[in-house]
């Protein structure tokens, strides 16, 4: 019962898919294709990311994170957060648990926003594709503007959010 309740969202999705197969088999076929592709990617990428998160949690002391990207880390902290974000690692949603444990270990909110922003918008393989299809001026301009925006958003969020507003993923 508890398991059914925990997984009610995916179960609901499954029900929608079943209904769709009766109603609009065309769309259902296309949706199922996309979903299966996506699932394959997830099954490959997600387990290692959570193991890495566990290792980070166990091995890296809080002081180290605070020193690197915590309060008082200044420009160096911005740089490190950006660098961690640009590593080629996959879709943004797998960065959320990592960001959560970094925050719990004393990272500044502004740096976490930069980390997520870089992860989402400024990936190196992604930039190569962007240059190819949209040209160099477009890519450079978007890169500079996005980085600026992310830094500003981080500053604002740090002012507005209190530590109690954050949830902690590693303890229940």
């Amino acid at each position, binding site marked *: 019962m508890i398991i059914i309740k925990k997984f009610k969202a995916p179960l609901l999705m499954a029900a929608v898919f079943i209904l769709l197969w009766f109603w609009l088999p065309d769309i259902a076929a296309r949706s199922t294709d996309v979903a299966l592709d996506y699932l394959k990617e997830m099954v490959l990428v997600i387990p290692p990311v*959570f193991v890495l998160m566990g290792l980070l949690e166990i091995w890296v002391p809080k002081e180290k994170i605070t020193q690197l990207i915590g309060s008082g880390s200044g420009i160096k902290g911005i740089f490190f957060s950006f660098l961690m974000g640009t590593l080629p690692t996959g879709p943004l*949603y797998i960065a959320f648990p990592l960001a959560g444990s970094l*925050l719990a270990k004393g990272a500044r909110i502004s740096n976490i926003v930069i980390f997520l922003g870089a992860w989402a918008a400024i990936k190196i393989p992604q930039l190569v594709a962007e240059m190819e299809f949209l040209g160099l001026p477009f890519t450079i301009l978007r890169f500079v503007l996005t980085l600026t925006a992310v830094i500003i958003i981080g500053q604002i969020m740090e002012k507005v959010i209190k530590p109690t*507003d954050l949830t902690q993923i590693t303890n229940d």
Partner: protein
Amino acid sequence: MTTIIVYILLALCVGLSLLKSREKTKKAFIVGARALWKMAPGLLAIVGVVGLILGILPPETISRLVGEEAGLMATATAAVLGAVTLIPALISFPLAGSLLRAGATVTTIAVFITTLVMVGFVTAPLEIKALGKKFTLLRNGMSFIAALIIAAVMGVILT
């Protein structure tokens, strides 16, 4: 390619961890597994939502919605589509490129790409679980506004 890098990184880290302490490595796996279990329903639901959205709105439909007219309406549609959909970069850039050639404005394309990567409507429940409601709302809300400003600036500079 990305996957290979992730696994190489993982192998290095796990190897190092095992060398230093078997006990702590086990603990790390437990911590990871517990967090994964907590996120699993959200992750599975995302698979379904992404499938549905791209099933209903395949790239061809998106280009029809965004590409036909180059007005404010197209830009607004692009902003919303970018925020709600979750398209892998390898598909979204060629799509954006062909839209641009088909007559969409730089502003429209820029807003689409920027909301696509920075605003995640579908992934918001996961983000809330890991980082809290306030964090998620603020990050996505401000990123959406930032995307509109970025696109407007790019439109002025590049056209």
